[in-house]
């Protein structure tokens, strides 16, 4: 199916009315991606407790279709909830590469944004954006679940703006065929 996404913009190029086809497809694709952002069950530190609270009864992220999946293969979003330690950096990169495209990263909390209270520690990576690309940053130590809620809304806004004519979801890796991800 990813193939269709990649081929569609090329195939309809020059055809009159192609733009309408593409934008109509965009509406449905973005709508579905927006309401089905599944994060990996993956917590690092204090923020993970707030992330759990966000899935639990009072904040209930299931309302927006955010449903945690244990395996990165079935996930769309990775919420980096907590301090990224140098020893953990390697597994994080690996999990990121195990996720299928399109994938998003939310950096939750000061530690994941920039090192937070551990800005001068010898064993902390000063910001997860040094190792993987980040879509949304959430400030706070730890951020309240409402802040994470706002981050998901922001991510939905970002997804809404994706256009298949600009290569949304069709990634360089997908064009080359199945990725060589050692598991």
């Amino acid at each position: 199916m990813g193939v269709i996404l990649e081929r569609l913009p090329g195939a309809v190029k020059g055809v009159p009315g192609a733009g309408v086809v593409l934008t109509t497809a965009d509406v449905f694709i973005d709508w579905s991606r927006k309401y089905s952002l599944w994060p990996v069950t993956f917590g690092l530190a204090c923020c993970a407790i707030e992330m759990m609270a966000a899935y639990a009864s009072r904040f209930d992220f299931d309302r927006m279709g955010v449903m945690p999946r244990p395996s990165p293969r079935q996930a769309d979003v990775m919420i980096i909830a907590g301090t990224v330690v140098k020893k953990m950096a390697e597994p994080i990169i690996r999990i990121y590469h195990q996720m299928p495209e399109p994938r998003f990263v939310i950096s939750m909390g000061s530690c994941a944004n920039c090192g937070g209270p551990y800005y001068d520690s010898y064993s902390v990576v000063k910001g997860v954006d040094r190792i993987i690309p980040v879509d949304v940053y959430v400030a706070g130590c730890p951020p309240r679940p409402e802040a994470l809620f706002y981050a998901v809304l922001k991510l939905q806004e970002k997804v809404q703006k994706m256009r298949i004519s600009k290569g949304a979801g069709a990634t360089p890796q997908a064009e080359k065929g199945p990725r060589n991800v050692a598991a």
Partner: protein
Amino acid sequence: MSELYPKPVFSKKAGRLLKTRLWPTERWASPWSQPQYRRSAGMLAGIIFGILLVGVVVGELSKWGDLLYRLLLTGTAWLHQTLPAYGAPAGFLGDAADITWISFKVIVIVAVINLNGLWAVWWERKLSAHMQSRLGPMYAGGFHGWAQTALDAVKLLLKEDARPADADGAVHRLAPVVVIVPAVLAFAPVLFGKELAAAKLDVGALYVLAVSGVSVIGIVMAGWASNNKFSLLGGLRSAAQVVSYEIPRIFAVVPVLMFVGSLDLAVIDQAQQGYWWGFFPRWFVFWFPAGPLAFLLFLIASLAETNRVPFDIPEAESELVAGFMTEYSGMKWALFFLAEYAYVLLACFMLSVFFLGGGAAPLPFLAIVPSWIWMLAKALAMMFLFMWLRWTLPRFRVDQLMDFNWKFLLPWSFACVGLAGIMLLWI
């Protein structure tokens, strides 16, 4: 929102801020004092009443539907006989009509399975949410997240198909197909109402139980081909579990077959029509003592066959990440999911056909509602039971699971057959 978080009011008399926020204890003290609870209750009553009304109306219409069905049958038969007489190649048009008719049935069944996947996942998410004092999907599509699973499906279709580098490519690709195809095939003789089935098979009961056992091969293939230890463990556990629970499951059906004397699902359904003393339904679940026992055994074994909690060892989230599905992404994973829910639906239909009277109404005067509505209602009630158990119970350990099967279920299923034999002396 305004009800939950009212504006702060400063009271000069008390010298402090009055309640700024409704404390949960206050909110739950008396639900009936809250307007949203009254609204919800009203809505629920309306939905139930509406379904009944529609059922009655459709029940009137269904007579015309039966007429249409009979017309189609006679039409096909007529084509078979008459067309060759007019010089057409022997049987050509008749075959064409058959093929069209069969394709139509296949499309209906595939649609049923797909719609069931969409509906059941949404229902399960809403149901679990309400059991856990949450709301579940709310925003997708507007009203109570009705579009949630449809959107999930579209997203999954468009996900990248990631495959581990060291995976056994062909087997990895084939496994979801091997899982989903038997799920579709098994629906062929399933009764959706009185005599409403895609294929009329004399050995319907046997066919369903046999074909649904094939899927385990796909699960083992998935576990093996993923080149992941968790997948392998999940696949092997699933194979062991499904194969062993097959035995008590089939033995639990034997009493029903003994009562009826036929493997045809329509005959089984027919045998449960009618009422004792004019009002008490003659469903097999009420044929004490073998009937209720067989029902329980079949229910438990079905839970295990469909890998639901408390028997969801193969995909135990906290132990094996996602079991045999760990390395599957996008639509391949969705196919596994779809097959799981198709089997749940199949088990629910089997439960209602074998034990709950199929399309029979629970009380004589309710027979005005058509049989397919009763069938569906019973199947959905069973599905509710499945979900209720899923969100209540913890999970067995794998050796306890096997113990439970071989030391508890299997002896009792034998006993059940014996009881049925004794009962047959009086019936």
